[in-house]
C-alpha cells in the first residue's frame, strides 16, 4: 500500500559522559534506574524500531520524560543517537555531512515547536519566510508563498505584527505557517498544541486534519494527551521510560493494550468516539441477516449507537465506500466493546 517514509531502526540514546560504554550495559539488560544509579547515565531511548508510512500521521505518545521529544529530534538529527539508524527515503540521516544535513533539513523536513520558537525580532510575515530565507529563495517568491500560508492558517491581516502581539494560538498558527511554507514532505510536530488552551487546541487539531486531507504530508506528532493522539493519529506509538510499549492503529491500542501501562492509559477513553465499525467487525460468512442495520466502515460507534438503541436491530452489516457488504457486527459484540 503506502511506502515507508521514515524508518527508525534499533535506536538508542544515552545521555552522559561515556554513552558508548553505557550502551553495552543497556544492551546487556541494565534498566533505566540501575543505569542512573550505578553508572550515572540517563537512558533516553532504548531499542526503538518504528516505520512511519508516507502521507500518514504518526503520533508518538508518552508522559514527560518518556523520551518522545528526544525521539522526534532524531529524525532531523537535532540530537545525535548513541546507536541505531534513521533512514528517510532510503538515505541514512546519521551518515549525512553538515552540508547534506542542512539541505535535508531545508527541503525535506519542517518542524513545529511546543513553545512556538518564533523569532521575536521579526514580523509574522518574516517569521513565515524564515525557512525560505535560509534557502536563499528570492524575496518575491518567498513573499508570495508565505502570504499564501499565512492566509491558509487564518492570519491574514496580521502579517506585519510581531509575535509578542499575538495570543498563543495565533503564535502557533505562525509556527505552522512557517513549517508549511517550507514545503517539506515531512512535518515534525513536537507537542505543537500542548501549550494551548483546550478550545484553541481543538481548533488547531481541526486545522491540521483539514490541511492533511489536502497536503498528505508525512506527519510525526508528539503529544502527551491520549485524546489528541486518538483524534489525529493514523497510528500511535506509546513510549514509556524510553521504551516503546506498543505501536499500532488507535483501535488496536484501545482494544488490545499490550502492557499494564498502556492499559492504564486507555482505561478512561470513550471508545465510542475512537473505534470505527471496521475495527470491530468480523468476517461475513453467511450470518443471519434478519433485521440488520447497515453502517459505513468509517463511522465511529457514536455515530450509529443511538440508532442501534432505538431500532434494536439483530445485527449490523458494515459497508465500504462502494456500498459493498464487507463485514458483520453482532449487537452482543458491540455492547461488549462498549462495556469494557
Amino acid at each position: 500500500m503506502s511506502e515507508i517514509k521514515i524508518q527508525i531502526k534499533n535506536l538508542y540514546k544515552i545521555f552522559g559522559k561515556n554513552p558508548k560504554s553505557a550502551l553495552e550495559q543497556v544492551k546487556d539488560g541494565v534498566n533505566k534506574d540501575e543505569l542512573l544509579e550505578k553508572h550515572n547515565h540517563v537512558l533516553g531511548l532504548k531499542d526503538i524500531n518504528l516505520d512511519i508510512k508516507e502521507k500518514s500521521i504518526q503520533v508518538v505518545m508518552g508522559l514527560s520524560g518518556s523520551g518522545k521529544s528526544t525521539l522526534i529530534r532524531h529524525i532531523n538529527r537535532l540530537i545525535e543517537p548513541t546507536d541505531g539508524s534513521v533512514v528517510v527515503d532510503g538515505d541514512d540521516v546519521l551518515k549525512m555531512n553538515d552540508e547534506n544535513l542542512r539541505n535535508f533539513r531545508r527541503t525535506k523536513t519542517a518542524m513545529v515547536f511546543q513553545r512556538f520558537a518564533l523569532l521575536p525580532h521579526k514580523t509574522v510575515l518574516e517569521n513565515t519566510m524564515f525557512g525560505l530565507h535560509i534557502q536563499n529563495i528570492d524575496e518575491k517568491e518567498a513573499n508570495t508563498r508565505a502570504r499564501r500560508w499565512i492566509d491558509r492558517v487564518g492570519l491574514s491581516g496580521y502579517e506585519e505584527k510581531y509575535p509578542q502581539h499575538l495570543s498563543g494560538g495565533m503564535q502557533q498558527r505562525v509556527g505552522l505557517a512557517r513549517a508549511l511554507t517550507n514545503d517539506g514532505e515531512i512535518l515534525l510536530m513536537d507537542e505543537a498544541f500542548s501549550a494551548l488552551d483546550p478550545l484553541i487546541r481543538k481548533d488547531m487539531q481541526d486545522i491540521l486534519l483539514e490541511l492533511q486531507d489536502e497536503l498528505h504530508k508525512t506527519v510525526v506528532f508528539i503529544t502527551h494527551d491520549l485524546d489528541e493522539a486518538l483524534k489525529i493519529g493514523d497510528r500511535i506509538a506509546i513510549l514509556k521510560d524510553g521504551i516503546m510499549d506498543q505501536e499500532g492503529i488507535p483501535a488496536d491500542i484501545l482494544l488490545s493494550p499490550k502492557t499494564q501501562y498502556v492499559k492504564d492509559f486507555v482505561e478512561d477513553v470513550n471508545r465510542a468516539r475512537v473505534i470505527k465499525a471496521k475495527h470491530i467487525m468480523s468476517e461475513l460468512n453467511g450470518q443471519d441477516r434478519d433485521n440488520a442495520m447497515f453502517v459505513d466502515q468509517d463511522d465511529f460507534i457514536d455515530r450509529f449507537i443511538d440508532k442501534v438503541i432505538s431500532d434494536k436491530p439483530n445485527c449490523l452489516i458494515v459497508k465500504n465506500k462502494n456500498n459493498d457488504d464487507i463485514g458483520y457486527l453482532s449487537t452482543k459484540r458491540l455492547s461488549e466493546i462498549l462495556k469494557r
Partner: protein
Amino acid sequence: MEKLFLTEFPELSRETLRFIKKGFDTSYRAFSREYGDNIEAVFDPVLYFLVWFEKLLQNSPWPLVLICFLAIIYFGSRKISVTIGSLFAFLLIGIFGMWEDTMSTVSIIGVCTLLSIGIGIPVGVMMAKSERAQRICTPILDVMQTMPSFVYLIPVVMLLGIGKIPGLLAVVIYAIPPIIRLTNLGIREVDSEVLEAADAFGANPRQKLFQIQLPLALPTIFAGINQTIMMALAMVVIASMIGVKGLGQPVLKAITNQYFAMGLFNGLAIVALAIIFDRVSQSFGHRIQQHRSGARE
C-alpha cells in the same frame, strides 16, 4: 631566628630584584627601539582619521557643527527634552570658552568608540562561540579592567612615545571590555529554543549569527556600547597626561596649579558630554527593542 622568619616575609635579595626589573626594562626598551616605528606605522591610518575628524569639528563653523550634533541627538533619542538640554549644554560650553577642547574630546571619544565596536563585537562573538576563547579572554578582560591605567600607560608610552595614538590605545584598552563582555553575554542569552528552530530549518552558523544571534543580542550589545562610551569619557583626563588634547588637559593643568574654577568648568563639560552620550545611546537602545516589550494591541 625562628621568630624573624615569621615576622619578615622571606623576600628575594635586593640584588636579584634589581636584576630582574632591570633585565625586564632593558629588553622591553630594546624591543621598542627595534619595532616601535613599525608598530606606530600600523596605527597611521587611525591617526590620520582622528586628526581629520578633529580638524573637521574644530574648523567647521560652530553653528553648523552644533546643528549636526543636535540632529544626531534628536534622531538618536527622538526626545525633544534631550535635544533642548543638549543645546543648552553646548551653548554653555561654548560661552565658557571650551568649544575647541570639547570638539577634541568628542573626536577622540568618537574614534575610540568606533574602534571598540569594531574590535569588541567580533571578539565578543568569538567568545560566545567558543568555550576556549571565553576561558582565554575572561582573565585578560579582568586584567584590562582592574589594572590601574597608569601601569599600562608606561609600556605604551615607551613603545609609541607621547601623543594621540598612545592616548587612543590607553582609552580603548580601558573602554573595550564592557562591549566584549556584553556582546558575549547577549549572544549566549539568546533563547536556545529559537536557535534549535533555526537548526531545524537548516540555518548555517553564519545565518544563525546574522539573522538571529546578533539581532537578538543587540539591546545587550547596546548597553555595552553605552558603557564603553562612559568609560572612554572617564579616561580623557588620564589620556591627557600623555598628550591627548581635549577637556582633560585643562583639568590636568588645574590640578597642578590648584585652579579650582578651571577644573570645575572643564569637569562639568565632561559630565555634560557624558550625560548627552548616555541619554542618546540609551534611548536608541530602548527603541531598537520596542517590539519585544511593546504592549499587546
